[in-house]
């Protein structure tokens, strides 16, 4: 501890797990936005990754509550949020937003889109897989064109509702931080918007990487037009995200309110590595520059792909750093504005680095299972 902190403030309350949580829900929102580009905005070029985006979103959404459960003092009481939600609490309402998004948007849309394949698989497979697919049919084997047309219409409506729902899902996480008046690092009306746009950026980057990796594993060529379009959207949204973050910064510097000096000092010292170097230079400016290069200079396909991959990877690191800077940064300074503390991250404890790493690997394991269960690609008949 440096300087003075209220005695109860020295120990951080929210750990790396709470950094992971907005990161993961952000990836969900971003992946879904890509899917909606295909379905609602009819951008044909991104059609090849429509299903992949949905499955990626699902894999991450299923993991999202886990860091929270590990963090809670009494995870066995977490269901209380659904039993007696306190309507004045942003956190309580989020439980319902999450459930809505999981059930009514994501699972429903995936089910409606895949129903044809599910029924076919239920009929043709044998053994335990047959039971799984049969259960997923909900007992209805009707995949006649009229029925599928209904699925298509309802699915379209679900995706349409899904867009504001995705905004709500991640904007809400931003609101959970942004509405805490006690913490000047968090308390800004810009927080939900910044979270949302950085979520979209991270989600798009993640789907781009997942697409490249899965195509590479399948020894197939990724669709160039698709990659080009995804990269272009990544750039546009990144520019908006960067502008919002700069707006927040400039606003703080200009207003120079009570907390400014203490926060400014913190950014220049304790958060310099994670905020200035990792988040801004390497995680935002560099990927924007790389993507901008691909838009301005005519490069060969392999060169473009390499730049896209690099930009996407840097983006993912940068957005993680952004979540770190918000959550951890908000707890490093004292509310007396007279001191600072340090975050001591453990390794193999419940809230340590090891479970955090495991939780970041888990969505990929789930995605692998989902890709096997519900392959996004229709194999051409031999």
């Amino acid at each position, binding site marked *: 501890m440096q300087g003075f902190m209220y005695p*109860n403030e020295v120990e951080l*309350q929210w750990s790396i797990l709470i950094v992971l949580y907005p990161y993961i829900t952000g990836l969900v929102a971003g992946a879904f936005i890509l899917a909606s580009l295909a379905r609602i905005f009819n951008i044909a070029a991104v059609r090849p990754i429509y299903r992949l985006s949905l499955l990626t979103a699902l894999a991450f959404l299923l993991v999202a509550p886990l860091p929270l459960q590990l963090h809670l003092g009494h995870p066995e009481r977490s269901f209380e949020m659904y039993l007696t939600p*306190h309507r004045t*609490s942003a956190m309580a309402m989020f439980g319902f937003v999450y459930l809505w998004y999981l059930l009514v948007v994501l699972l429903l849309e995936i089910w409606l889109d895949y129903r044809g394949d599910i029924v076919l698989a239920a009929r043709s497979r044998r053994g335990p897989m047959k039971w799984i697919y049969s259960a997923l049919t909900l007992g209805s084997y009707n995949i006649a064109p009229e029925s599928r047309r209904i699925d298509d219409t309802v699915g379209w409506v679900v995706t349409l509702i899904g867009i504001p729902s995705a905004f709500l899902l991640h904007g809400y996480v931003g609101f959970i931080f942004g509405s805490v*008046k*006690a913490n000047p690092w968090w308390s800004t009306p810009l927080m939900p918007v910044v979270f949302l746009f950085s979520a979209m950026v991270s989600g798009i980057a993640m789907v781009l990487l997942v697409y490249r990796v899965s195509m590479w594993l399948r020894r197939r060529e990724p669709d160039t037009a698709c990659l080009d379009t995804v990269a272009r959207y990544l750039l546009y949204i990144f520019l908006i995200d960067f502008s919002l973050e700069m707006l927040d910064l400039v606003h703080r510097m200009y207003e120079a309110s009570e907390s400014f000096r203490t926060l400014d000092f913190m950014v220049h010292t304790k958060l310099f590595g994670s905020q200035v170097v990792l988040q801004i230079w390497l995680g935002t400016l560099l990927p924007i520059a790389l993507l901008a290069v691909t838009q301005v200079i005519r490069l060969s396909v392999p060169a473009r792909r390499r730049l896209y991959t690099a930009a996407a990877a840097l983006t993912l690191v940068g957005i993680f750093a952004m979540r770190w800077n918000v959550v951890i940064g908000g707890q490093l300074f004292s509310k007396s*504005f007279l001191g600072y503390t340090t975050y001591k991250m453990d390794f193999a404890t419940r809230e340590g680095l090891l479970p955090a790493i495991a939780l970041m690997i888990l969505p990929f394991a789930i995605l692998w299972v989902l890709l096997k269960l519900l392959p996004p690609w229709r194999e051409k008949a031999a």
Partner: protein
Amino acid sequence: MKPPPSNDLNRRDLLAGFGKFIILSGAARVALEAATTGVPPPDADKYKAAQHWWAMTIDVGRCIGCGNCVRACTKENGVPAGYFRTWVERYHVNDADLEHPVVESPNGGFDGFKPKQESAGKSFFVPKLCNHCVDSPCVQSCPVGATFESPDGVVLVDEKYCLGCRYCIQACPYGCRYLHPTKKTADKCSLCYHRITKGLTTACCEACPTGARQLANLKNPADPVHEFLRSNTVQVLKPHMATRPKVFYKDLDGAVR
């Protein structure tokens, strides 16, 4: 055509009247018994929340930084070492630099303070605790209703219901909450609710040698708090947070954070 209202007693009126008679006669019987035998009715000394709106007054000019309050609170409430339901801060304000007071609170003031003799500037002690805010941001933020304001104005934590999400700890502008290391629930000053509902004062007020800390009941017209608030320069901590705290400080210096 509606029939005109009847002046006769209908059955409902009769039953209501009879019921009232039974209840009132029962009450009358008890009161009569009390008046004649001198034995108070069983409920007379039971604590009535509706007659209390708890607050605290702190006279900064009387605090000597002995740390008795911190030790007493720890003993009374089983506060774990390293965590604080109440604590004392020592301020040293240099005339030239009002923006940067030198503040310390070694172990929350539990062991008192190392004596210092400063020549320039001014020094003083400030005890702090949960302000039992009327518009408490911690109560607002609790997702399940595990922290709440009691009907008599005390902000409490239901340790059987708290999930340990720590959102309330983040929401408190005063740093008065912590996570109990073994119970894994949020914890903070309870204004010694178990004492004040039995006619005792809080442990910190009991232990304070100079009477700097005083428990107050704003609903009691005879409580000294009313005179205190009327005749002194009184402040609350962080008024710009609009939490409506109920701990009132006399002669709180502007340098206090």
